[in-house]
């Protein structure tokens, strides 16, 4: 019996079960789940539980019951609320609901679920930055229209970024489009890691446009360096 309400009824049970089997087959999964006292310590410690309809206890319980319907619902509706802070590891049984969510998210992305695409909409430029440059956050990302809630100091940084970066004593930090100066050989090595581990296929499942751009960028660099792409 499932504890899930009637959701995602258009998705065949077999399809849901296949995804949940993929989750359970992950080598990390067994170390994240040991049972549940129903004590609620994980919920009390969870930041997301205070502001969303979200419960790490429900994540652990659904996994312990192997409730395919409920886990599928969580994979779509809950996992992107998690803060991934791992405060839930305060669990006296040693459960790691945040770790289960990491795996659920990964399977959701790998299989291109519509909910994962929605959750990652607007996130493409961040993925592009980290995958193409090797640093996720750069000074030129501090633009007033991107961070209006951080106040006028963002505009001050944006207006002065070229000079302020030159006024940093470490030589590696005189950059604006990357967090620090990453050398070309290192970028090539990073691209080879992405290609060897199937990450590009994952990107393709959730954002075809981004996948195409990244492939082009990487091909150019790797071709020039003499690698077959």
């Amino acid at each position: 019996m499932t504890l899930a309400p009637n959701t995602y009824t258009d998705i065949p049970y077999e399809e849901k079960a296949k995804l949940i089997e993929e989750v359970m087959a992950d080598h990390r999964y067994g170390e994240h789940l040991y049972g549940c006292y129903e004590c609620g310590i994980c919920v009390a410690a969870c930041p997301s539980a205070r502001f969303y309809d979200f419960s790490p206890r429900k994540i652990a319980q659904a996994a312990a019951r192997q409730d395919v319907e409920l886990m599928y619902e969580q994979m779509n509706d809950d996992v992107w609320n998690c803060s991934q802070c791992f405060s839930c590891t305060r669990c006296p049984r040693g459960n790691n609901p945040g770790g289960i969510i990491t795996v659920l998210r990964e399977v959701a992305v790998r299989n291109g679920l519509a909910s994962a695409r929605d959750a990652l909409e607007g996130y493409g430029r961040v993925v592009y930055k980290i995958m193409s440059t090797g640093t996720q956050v750069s000074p030129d990302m501090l633009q007033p229209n991107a961070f209006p809630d951080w106040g006028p100091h963002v505009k001050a940084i944006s207006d002065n970024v070229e000079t302020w970066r030159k006024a940093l004593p470490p030589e590696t930090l005189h950059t604006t489009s990357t967090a620090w100066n990453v050398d070309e050989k290192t970028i090539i090595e990073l691209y080879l890691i992405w290609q060897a581990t199937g990450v590009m296929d994952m990107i393709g499942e959730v954002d075809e446009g981004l996948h195409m751009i990244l492939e082009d960028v990487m091909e150019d660099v790797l071709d020039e360096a003499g690698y077959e792409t």
Partner: protein
Amino acid sequence: MSLELPVLKERRAERKNAPPPTEDVREKVFEIEAQGDWIVHRVPDDHVEVFTKYGRVKKIPRQNLWHHKSCGQCGHIPGYSTAIFWLMRKLGLAYEDPTDQTSCTAWNYYASATSNAAAQAGVAMRNFGAAYEAGNYPLIHCGTSYGHYKEVREELIHDPELRKQVKGIMEKLGKPFVMPEEIVHYSEWVYAMRRELANLKVLDFSDITATVHPACHYHKLVVEDAIYDRDIYDGQRTAVVTAVVEALGANIGEYSTWYDCCGFGFRHILVERDFTRSFAIERKIEVMKKEANPDVVLTHDTGCVTTLDQSQFAGRAHDRDVGIPVLSDAQFAALAMGAHPYKVCQLHWHNTDNKPLLEKMGIDHESKWAEFEEELRMIEAGEKEFLTWEDADG
């Protein structure tokens, strides 16, 4: 002097000779080296021994460190990274600021899951290999990189197939397959060196009260590897940051939500900041204000400084009880030791007003800002290309 929690002494548990409840992962690290699977990058002889949560000894190297920088620090709060380098220079310790380092990419992984265990381990082992090739020991600046790399270490130890796959990738890259003997966070180095740093302080911080936010990915991921100290909170919370505040002669302000996350959320800070702001203000800043009324919040991770500092601006619009500047432990120590607030600590990249704090510290922020502005003028006029370390200490 020791910082103690208000607990009954007669109820305080002694560790005695009870074995730690978790395996010592470092034994496995050496076993795998003995099998010929990887090289262990040993902590150099010049190190300090400290205690972790269950009483094990952890070696913290003093110098010849390969600085594994943080993208969030270097990109948006660069005075955080600069202060760490400055502390090492002040102590005359050798270090390397490499360009063959990438981000750990874990911020993106915890935010979007657009990666996998092999890719994450590949990134970690490429960086570890680069440090080994350089002959310097990796020092991890970011709390998330530190926590994530420890998780990667666990995965590589317990999954031979993953290890084989990542080793194969490193061979293709021409990189050695190397696991450090210890994975070391910069705040552990600051903790280990706190007395040497305090010996060089030039400002009296005895009127300064700080609240400490321990970073989740420092003490909640692979918990047994974080530093604890019987003299700090009776060994019931991690001792990093707090012990540094104590060594520098400042005061600790207690508050009840110390265990709570800052609200960073990885994806939330980028695309759902209403959650991040609400949590940071309601569960951290306002509680600190009400219960401790500190002069400054100190923490030891990229996301925590960013979240706790930047979130306060919107709180002002809603008449929330905000307005506490946020710094890293490294910046706080550097200021105590006479570092320039703008040339070194780069406080103009921070958001919440820190001028009242600087005044209370005895720092003339107006003249310091004028000095910095003169440097900016010279750069803009082409009279100098960059601010140098010599300029920063001038």
